[in-house]
């Protein structure tokens, strides 16, 4: 599916508005859209709404063999999926450029910055380590997927709890959540990416571009930073030439934004923790806003089931019982399959009827092809065929010559060959 093309007047208008320091939704140049962070029912699930952009991240873990050159470090695996739900331009399966770029940026932001202590994920050095897998699903694309994905990923990692493990000599016991409380990952710092969009060859910049702004931008600068003002990753794409002062200014803006967002994540984590302690339900279901008219919720309901058993019994009693035995197929010679009853060919006599049938039902050439295929399989099963027929259903005429040394197969052969001829003939008639 293709996305709607951008018209020239939209492009011109957006650029003109940016020159006047005005944005489409009334934000200031350095403003983020409203960020909403919620967590799911199980540990490690995080939903992030950045304006209309929505993403979901889920963290899971499993025990695997570690990499050979790093035997006592755990493995982190990131997967950002551009779902076709998020935008009509995203297609299922194909790794588009944007998908590769976002995945790479997410990996650099989170793995190369060593925000997670991978050595604590080691269980048995050289044999078993935890592999932490982060899946980020994009639900709605309204621009700036990268920032939303990074917030969701780090939020999910902070929220995640892995099963507790104990080692006794050679034995490794993994405890389920009911036996022992799962333990959180050890996270050193929280890198968060901030995106800057540049317009007019670097003259104007905007923070957190929305989808339409992304389409007209010249280039994008992504700075991943943590709240201790350490830059974890910097990436500039689009080929814009940036001056040193611009990059310094961007990093200052980024540090302010990162501290705000980190504050938001911590607050959301705290809310979730208190909600779970209080024993309340949490998760996507609870985060659904109830006051909107587009949302509705009901409570646990019982269903009237008084006459379920009676209807079921009556249906069973009135239904015809299936046959207890199935007629077994007869096999004339071992190694030979058979279709039909092996009687004398009656197709030649019924040719006219078959033509009428064909005309009446509009010429079902599919059936013919399957008949042909069936015959082909039948022939294949008999190993003594010397000439393999090539059944090309596109050919108008078919001269089929079959050589069978065994006499027992003759009735079948005549049946099949004349059948084919018959079918071929009838098809010829149809094509006329």
């Amino acid at each position: 599916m293709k996305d709607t093309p951008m018209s020239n007047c939209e492009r011109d208008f957006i650029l003109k508005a940016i020159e006047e320091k005005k944005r489409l939704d009334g934000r200031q140049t350095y403003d983020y859209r409203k960020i909403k962070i919620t967590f799911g029912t199980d540990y490690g699930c995080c939903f992030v709404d950045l304006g209309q952009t929505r993403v979901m991240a889920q963290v899971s873990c499993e025990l695997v063999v570690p990499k050979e050159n790093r035997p006592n470090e755990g493995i982190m695996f990131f997967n950002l999926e551009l779902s076709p739900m998020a935008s009509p331009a995203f297609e299922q399966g194909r790794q588009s450029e944007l998908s590769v770029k976002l995945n790479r940026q997410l990996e650099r932001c989170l793995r190369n910055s060593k925000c997670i202590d991978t050595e604590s994920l080691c269980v048995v050095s050289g044999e078993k380590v935890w592999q932490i897998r982060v899946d980020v699903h994009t639900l709605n694309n309204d621009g700036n997927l990268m920032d939303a994905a990074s917030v969701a990923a780090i939020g999910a990692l902070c929220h995640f709890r892995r099963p507790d493990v104990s080692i006794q000599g050679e034995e490794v016991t993994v405890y389920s959540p009911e036996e022992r409380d799962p333990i959180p990952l050890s996270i050193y710092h929280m890198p968060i990416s901030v995106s800057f969009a540049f317009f007019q060859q670097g003259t104007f910049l905007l923070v957190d571009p929305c989808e339409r702004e992304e389409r007209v931008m010249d280039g994008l600068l992504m700075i991943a930073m943590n709240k201790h003002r350490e830059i974890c990753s910097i990436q500039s794409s689009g080929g814009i030439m940036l001056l040193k002062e611009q990059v310094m200014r961007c990093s200052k803006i980024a540090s302010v934004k990162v501290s705000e967002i980190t504050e938001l994540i911590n607050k959301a984590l705290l809310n979730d923790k208190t909600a779970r302690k209080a024993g309340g339900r949490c998760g996507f279901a609870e985060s659904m806003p109830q006051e909107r008219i587009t949302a509705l919720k009901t409570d646990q309901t019982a269903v009237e089931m008084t006459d379920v058993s009676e209807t079921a019994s009556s249906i069973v009693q009135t239904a015809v019982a299936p046959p207890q035995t199935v007629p077994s197929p007869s096999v004339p010679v071992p190694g030979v399959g058979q279709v039909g009853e092996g009687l004398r060919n009656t197709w030649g006599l019924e040719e006219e009827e078959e033509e009428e049938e064909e005309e009446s039902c509009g010429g079902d050439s599919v059936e013919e092809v399957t008949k042909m295929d069936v015959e082909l399989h039948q022939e294949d099963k008999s190993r003594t065929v010397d000439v393999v027929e090539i059944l090309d259903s596109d050919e108008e005429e078919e001269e089929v010559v079959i050589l069978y040394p065994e006499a027992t197969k003759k009735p079948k052969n005549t049946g099949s060959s004349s059948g084919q001829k018959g079918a071929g003939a009838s098809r010829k008639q149809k094509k006329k």
Partner: protein
Amino acid sequence: MLSTRIQSGKTKMSETQFSRLSNLHAVNSSGSKSVCVRSAKSGLKSTLILTHCSYLDRDSHRSADGEKRTSQCATGVFKGRVTSVQAAFREFGCEQTLLSRPDGSASFVQGDTSVMAGVYGPAEVKISKEIYDRATLEVLVHPKVGLPGVRERSQEQCVRETCEASLLLSLHPRSSLTLVLQVLHDDGALLSCCLNAACMALMDAGLSMSCLFCGVTCAISADGEIITDPTAAQEKESRALMTFAIDSKERRVMMSSTKGSFSVHELQQCVAASQKASEKIFQFYRDSVRRRYSKNL
């Protein structure tokens, strides 16, 4: 919201149902948000509830309808096996039009299981996939963890068959309808939650349908009990699991997907139970659409 339901339903619901509901939920005095607290204490001060508390089993969802039990015992004795139908739905909720890009979107929640659906269509179709006289429906199910595998493909096929049977595809030849389902949390009855979310999203997109459909899951436990809308724990311990797609006009079965072994009688009981249960879901669809159009724009 719970408080208004109880007040309006006081005369209609049987007392045992009423007390069971209030037993499982505690309501704030403001009634704004209901928090589910699984304890025998109820927040409402009413002698009616307290007298019935003792009859209720706190943990199981066993229905306390006396008449039902006797009739089932009667059939149980007749057939020689213990069958009772535990028919209760977990909380369910939905939200429509929650995503700005898709033409139609909905999220459906059943207890803890939640699925989000997005629909695009009728839109451009690739030449290789176009069908000359009807729309090409593509269903995608994305699991929460990992890449889609064989299980997701079979779920996609089930959903697609149901949708193709109820949508009027011949109104949009040579165009594509894409339905994407994202699993947000799986706590049992996933396929029926997918079906319900798909139906609401198709309605939200305004696609022409000949009828609505809903999904109901039944699990047969090891001792022959039929549970509708099972949780993941109940599913794991069941000996058979069935999902049916029921249509809204004549309550017929449009699609069935079963796992495990069961007898013919049990199958018919599950079908009948699903048909009964589907009425609740269709009423819920109606209520949510009514609420949606309640504003006079």
